[in-house]
C-alpha cells in the first residue's frame, strides 16, 4: 500500500492520526449500517418474492379472462365499454425512512377500495369481462403493495451496494494508507532524531579533541 505524499513532520503526524481515528469510526458506523440494511433488505426481498408470485398468479388469471372476453366481444365494443372508467383508482403516497433511505409508502384511497363498479351496461358485454374486472379489483391492493415493496427493495439494494463500497474503501484503502503513512512519518522522525544525536556526539568529540 502506498504512502501518502506528506512532509514527515510532527504536525502531519498528528493530522494523520486524527484522520485515522475518524476513518476507523466511520468504518465501524458504516459497517453497522450495512449489516442492518442487509437484515431489513432480506425481510423485504422475501416479501417481495412472495407478493410477486401472488400477483402474477392473480393477474395471469384476470388477463386471460380479459383476453377471452375480448375474443367473444367485438373489439370496438370492448373498447367502448371501458372507455370511461366508473371510478378512478386513487392513491396517496407517503414516505418512510429506512436508515436514511427514503422509500415510498402507497396507500389506497378509501373510495377506491370496496366492490368493483362495472363501467358499462350488462347488455352488450360478456360475462367473462365482469369476472375479469372483479378479479382485477381484488388484486389491486396486492398490486399496490407489490409496487411499494419492489420499489423499497430496489432502493435498498442500491444503498447497500453503495454502503458496501464505502466500507471496503475505508477498510482496504484508506485505513491501511493512513497506518502506513503514520509508520513512515514516525520512522522518519526517529531517524532524524538519531541523526541529530550522533551529530551532537561527534561535535562534542571534536570539541574535546581540540581542547586537548
Amino acid at each position: 500500500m502506498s504512502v501518502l505524499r506528506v512532509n514527515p513532520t510532527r504536525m502531519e503526524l498528528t493530522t494523520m492520526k486524527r484522520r485515522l481515528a475518524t476513518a476507523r469510526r466511520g468504518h465501524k458506523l458504516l459497517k453497522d449500517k450495512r449489516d442492518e440494511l442487509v437484515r431489513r433488505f432480506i425481510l423485504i426481498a422475501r416479501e417481495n418474492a412472495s407478493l410477486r408470485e401472488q400477483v402474477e398468479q392473480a393477474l395471469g388469471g384476470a388477463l386471460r379472462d380479459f383476453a377471452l372476453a375480448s375474443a367473444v366481444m367485438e373489439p370496438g365494443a370492448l373498447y367502448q365499454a371501458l372507455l370511461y372508467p366508473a371510478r378512478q383508482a386513487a392513491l396517496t403516497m407517503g414516505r418512510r425512512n429506512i436508515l436514511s433511505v427514503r422509500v415510498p409508502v402507497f396507500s389506497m384511497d378509501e373510495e377506491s377500495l370496496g366492490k368493483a363498479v362495472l363501467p358499462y351496461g350488462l347488455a352488450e358485454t360478456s360475462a367473462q369481462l365482469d369476472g375479469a374486472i372483479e378479479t382485477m379489483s381484488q388484486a389491486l391492493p396486492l398490486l399496490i403493495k407489490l409496487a411499494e415493496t419492489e420499489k423499497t427493495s430496489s432502493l435498498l439494494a442500491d444503498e447497500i451496494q453503495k454502503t458496501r463500497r464505502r466500507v471496503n474503501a475505508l477498510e482496504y484503502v484508506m485505513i491501511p494508507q493512513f497506518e502506513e503513512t503514520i509508520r513512515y512519518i514516525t520512522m522518519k522522525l526517529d531517524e532524524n532524531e538519531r541523526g541529530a544525536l550522533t551529530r551532537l556526539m561527534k561535535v562534542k568529540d571534536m570539541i574535546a579533541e581540540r581542547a586537548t
Partner: protein
Amino acid sequence: MADKLLRMGAVGEEDAILAFKAIGAVAVPANTADEVASALHRLSRDGIPIIFITEAAARMAPEAVARYDQAMETAVIPIPGIRGSDGYGAQRVRDNVIKAIGADILQYNN
C-alpha cells in the same frame, strides 16, 4: 404531499392494459421501444407514482425502465402480459438480491 390523490399508470400492449383501464389506471398503449420510453416519461412527468408495465414492453425498452430504478417518485413495476409471466419480473427481484447481497439467497428459501 401525502394527502394528494394520485393515479396509477399502465404501459404495454393494448389488450393487457385495457384491464388496467377498467380499474381506473391511466393506460397508455405502447408497442415499440420508443413508444414505451415516451409513455413512461410522460406518465412519470405527470406525477404518477406507480406505473405498471407489461413484461414484453419492459423487455423492449430496458434503458427506459432502468432510468426510473433509483427514482423514489416513480415505481415502474413489471406485470405479466396476457400470455402469462415470462419471468422478467421475478428476475428483477432476484437481480436486486444479487446486487445487495452478492448471491441469490431466495431460491433456497422458497
